[in-house]
């Protein structure tokens, strides 16, 4: 199982405003808020923590199929090189990579190195972006497991959780997109 989440830094600057009243209090625990206020780059810290929470939520819902919105309760703990996210008695590890253009987090149940493949979109159109990302994912699985692309079926369950299926095998995957960037991860 794997969850990932990407933040397009330029997009986050345009389409969200973390300084609006009650924004931070609604999404982040007191400790996380302190961490944000004390950091050298609050903008980056906000979106790093947000991507960690989202990646962890996607991983959590693969193990416990459900759908809800409670980012505040996915509490992030940042260590030197990796992060941990806890939600009730669920705990996972998160690797994050920050570039000038994007922030990407990937969550797994065990310590990990980030494996998500990042894609830059040419199209602004969401439907095209999503088709493009899916085709990249299918190609990658086909190569990795030596299975013809035509035998791979992309599916989503009632909760919107995606998998790729072939020969009775169900692979958990994670897809994410934001602004001009997308990424996929294969478990």
């Amino acid at each position, binding site marked *: 199982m794997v969850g990932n989440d990407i*933040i397009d830094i330029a997009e*986050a600057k345009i*389409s*969200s405003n973390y300084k*609006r*009243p*009650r*924004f931070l209090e*609604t*999404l982040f625990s007191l400790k996380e808020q302190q961490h944000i206020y004390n950091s050298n780059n609050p903008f980056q810290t906000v979106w790093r923590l*947000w991507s960690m929470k*989202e990646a962890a939520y996607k991983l959590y819902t693969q193990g416990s199929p459900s*759908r*809800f*919105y*409670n*980012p*505040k*309760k996915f509490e992030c703990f940042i260590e030197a090189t990796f992060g941990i996210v806890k939600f009730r008695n669920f705990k996972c590890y998160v690797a994050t990579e920050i570039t000038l253009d994007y922030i990407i987090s990937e969550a797994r149940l065990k310590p990990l190195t980030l494996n998500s493949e990042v894609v830059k979109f040419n199209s602004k159109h*969401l439907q095209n972006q999503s088709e493009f990302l899916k085709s990249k994912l299918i190609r990658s699985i086909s190569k990795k497991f030596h299975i013809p692309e035509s035998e791979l079926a992309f599916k989503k369950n009632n909760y*919107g959780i995606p998998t790729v299926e072939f020969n009775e095998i169900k692979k958990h995957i994670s897809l994410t997109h*934001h602004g001009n960037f997308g990424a996929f991860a294969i478990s």
Partner: protein
Amino acid sequence: MTKDDLISRLKTIVAPYVQDEEAFKSLTEDTDFVKDLKINSANLVDIILDIEDEFDIRLENEDMEQMLDVKSAMTIVTAKLKE
């Protein structure tokens, strides 16, 4: 406030975040913010804060948990307005 009034006020709130205009045109109680309107999860918090401002209410974490579609938003707002 009638149901139609409530839907139309919610429609105004979500409009700036919508990424699927076709689904937005045919918005009903059953419309899902993420699956149908393709609203980015990073913007769900903006919708929650906008709803709080528009109706002068405050939502608890538990209220937000199911705020993923028009119907749930209507139920929560209606309940809060009665408090």
